[in-house]
């Protein structure tokens, strides 16, 4: 397989903590509870990053380390576990690590075991912001679930889709598989803890999300299953390759070229707009590779694709498709700004932290974070996927250029650019 050349920098970029993935995982696994052993910082992080989704009864919480707790080498969380069980009745509790207890060298495996029961398992999930970024910790959560997937006998030759997608998308994939004659064993994760799919040597694991290489590797090693190596099912090109490659594992030969062509045709207005546009990926969701590959297929010029981590095996097909694109792991944000200034991209897919300031510098930038929340998978997701890019371009083109004058930033927030009039008279 082709080896794309990548650059690795020093990682001084902006990003979110891996704990953020709790935001969708607690909703996906409906009988779960996510307990973070952490500090006020962790609670403040969750509050602000999940702010749009706050409800009075979230199924996640922080077991809060206060000053007096710092002296004990191994904290006692049993009271909080009991409180959670009493009030939320979860089927499973995920115990997530965070920076402070990692610095304190808390022994998490033992801690989880000490409060775990057969009825309500408590599963350790490494997720600290010292080591994990954004979507990465979904990988840790799914790893923790592996022991609870029933073993499947070797003759059980079915597909398990890997990665959390919402129920509507899951239905799409089940139905599409049925249409192609591919038997489906289930999804990891499932919507409920006790619905985890059986996995064994005959299982084909088909990753839907690009940030799950640890889980895939562990499944292959422990269950002897086969990991589908293909493009991720994003865009007409990715979706076609995904299904064709998956079908091949079941000795089903399908030619989806007509469907792919029809899908491209439907979004022609958008691909026409994207053709030749310079796109810069500076986001941190780990979805950058397939998104960049799709844009390349649309005819856009991906001037840089930065992403937190690349796994050469798990991402092999995407990397091959991205040949010629500048790929950067662990980018330095200062250097990215210089590259942006030099290459003048038409669109920057950036971190949620840097988007507004990038726009303030006169570029067109959009939240990469959205791709964790948009229904962009499979055939049904093609339109949402492509328009997510073209909308930003079209909107900015529509706005009167007058608004870009720095006068319109004057004094309206404390962080208004230097050199303009401040609120000091």
């Amino acid at each position, binding site marked *: 397989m082709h080896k794309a050349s990548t650059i690795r920098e020093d990682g001084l970029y902006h990003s979110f903590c891996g704990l953020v993935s709790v935001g969708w995982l607690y909703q996906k696994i409906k009988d779960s509870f996510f307990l973070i052993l952490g500090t006020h910082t962790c609670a403040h992080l969750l509050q602000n990053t999940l702010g749009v989704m706050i409800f009075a009864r979230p199924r996640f919480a922080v077991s809060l380390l206060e000053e007096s707790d710092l002296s004990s080498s191994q904290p006692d969380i049993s009271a909080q576990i009991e409180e959670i069980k009493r009030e939320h009745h979860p089927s499973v509790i995920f115990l997530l690590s965070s920076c402070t207890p990692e610095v304190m060298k808390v022994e998490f495996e033992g801690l989880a075991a000490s409060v775990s029961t057969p009825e309500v398992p408590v599963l350790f999930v490494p997720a600290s912001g010292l080591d994990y970024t954004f979507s990465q910790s979904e990988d840790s959560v799914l790893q923790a679930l592996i022991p609870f997937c029933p073993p499947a006998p070797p003759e059980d030759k079915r597909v398990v889709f890997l990665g959390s997608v919402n*129920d509507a998308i899951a239905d799409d994939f089940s139905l599409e598989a049925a249409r192609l004659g591919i038997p489906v064993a289930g999804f990891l994760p499932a919507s409920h803890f006790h619905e985890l799919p059986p996995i064994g040597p005959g299982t084909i694991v088909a990753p839907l999300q690009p940030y799950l290489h640890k889980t895939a590797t562990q499944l292959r090693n422990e269950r002897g299953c086969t990991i589908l190596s293909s493009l991720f099912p994003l865009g007409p090109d990715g979706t076609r390759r995904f299904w064709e490659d998956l079908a091949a594992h079941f000795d089903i030969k399908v030619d989806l070229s007509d469907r792919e062509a029809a899908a491209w045709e439907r979004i022609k207005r958008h691909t026409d707009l994207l053709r030749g546009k310079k796109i810069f990926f500076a986001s941190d969701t780990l979805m950058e590779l397939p998104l960049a590959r799709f844009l390349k297929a649309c005819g856009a010029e991906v001037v840089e694709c930065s992403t937190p981590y690349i796994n050469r095996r798990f991402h092999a097909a995407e990397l091959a498709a991205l040949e010629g694109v500048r790929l950067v792991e662990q980018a330095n944000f200062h250097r990215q700004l210089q590259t942006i200034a030099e290459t003048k991209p038409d669109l920057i897919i950036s971190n949620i932290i840097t988007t507004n300031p990038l726009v303030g510098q006169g570029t067109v*930038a959009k939240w990469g974070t959205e791709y964790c929340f948009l229904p962009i998978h499979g055939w049904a997701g093609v339109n949402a996927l492509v328009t997510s890019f073209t909308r930003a371009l079209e909107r900015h083109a529509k706005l009167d250029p007058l608004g870009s004058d720095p006068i*319109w930033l004057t004094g309206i927030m404390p962080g208004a650019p230097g050199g303009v009039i401040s*609120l000091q008279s």
Partner: protein
Amino acid sequence: MRLAYWMYEGTAHHGVGRIANSMRNVHAVFHAPQGDDYVNAIFAMLERSPNFPAMTTSVVSGTDLARGTIRLPDTLKQVEERVHPDLIIVVASCSTILLQENLEIAAQHAGLQCEVMVYDANPYRMQEIVAAESLFTDLVKRFAKPQPRTERPTVNILGPASLGFHARHDLISLRRMLKTLGVEINVVAPWGASIADLRRLPAAWLTIAPYRELGLRAATYLEEQFGVPALLDAPIGVQPTLRWIERLRELLAQAGADIPMPPLTAFSLDGLSAPSAVPWLARTADMDSFSGKPAFVFGDATHVVGVTRFLHDELGMPIAGAGTYVKHQADWVREQLAGYVDEVLVTDEFQTVAARIAALRPELVCGTQMERHTSRRYDLNCMVISPPTHIENHLLAYRPFLGFDGADVIADEVYTTCTLGMEKHLIDLFGDAGLELPEKAKNGSAQAVEPAPAAVTVESPKPEQEPAVATVAVSGPTPAVAAPPAPAAPVDPVWAADAEAMLKKVPFFVRGRVRGNVERYARQHGHAVITAQVLLAAKEELGA
């Protein structure tokens, strides 16, 4: 004949009332049945008028008709005695106009000192807007007198009126901009104007008339008759405001006055900032989601044109459709919105608008009070951008639609109206797992999932039946009312079917509270079962 549910415009006599109530020492008298007196209530309620609206109904009753009595002269005398107006405007109603009485002669019989004008507003041929605009134009024609220009350059502002949409705030916005430019005001009318003020109108160097519905014809008359140039644009949005200021300066320059342009920051509320935050907001990332939210806009001519262009040009939103109920301005609206929409819906039947909205299902509806209700029915986001309004649209704080300040106000409305949709969108990606509203709590495994403090007794005996909220309401650590000590072993009372059925008739938004109160009552009185009789007794004791 047709079936009419709600009307976008008021009646002709309401339009007359709006002009009279705007002006100083002008009074309207309606020769009408008592039922027509309701227009007074609109002023007293929506504008929260601290004095009696400047209009009086001279009652015509069935008995009066039978007897041939006409009370108009008496009423006119009473009005002159009570309010001493400079001018009384007499107008017939839709029913009395059919009597073909000569109101001129009847009015003369009153023998008043003040001027009396019998205004011939045929309610079958004109409604609120035309009646008000025609009356105001007539008044200007009648009273404006040739005279020299003011020494320094001044402008008239025509259009702000009683029950005008955000009219007072628009006037403040215009005043603020004129003050920043150093331009003085000659006359504002009809708002606050006396007959003497109308006389002074031709002394201005320029007339500003931003509304298509009121002031336009008077401004045009002043231009044609007295050579006072008219600026008829509505500065809705940042760019239209910039153009409006330019045009104002051009027109004054043509009239011989050089008005220097101050720095744009001078137009801001603190004089130190960008005059509007809209250009920046429009470019920020969280407005990205708005580029996919089509809007439907319906209302009067001025606001439909201004808001449609604002949404499209300044916020980058797609326009699903637009329309107006002001039929005589339909051509102007079409001309202004060419390129924005393929077709302009022109109708005064709200059902037609409702059907269009139902068909389009836009993410944002900008409309009148009627569209607000239509949108509620279809669970669509709606903001009110045009009369007719609801009392919720008559607020205290500064909320203009015109000028830079108005751009911020409109953008906020768009943003807050649509945000819930965005929020819901994120939540619902994974279903309603996070959305635990009370209705939901009744279904599924709702028992004891409340993150209530430890003091709460969670061993509720009937977790499946009761929504969790009710449990909390009665078992929180600090009850609202200091209740007498409960019996030693408190039992949660059970609701009998008849009581439950009764409770359902209590409005749902207080039902939970009533439920809690009644249960507390039952515990205090040792009732294990809440029957209808117990509920009745509880209601009697608790007063609700």
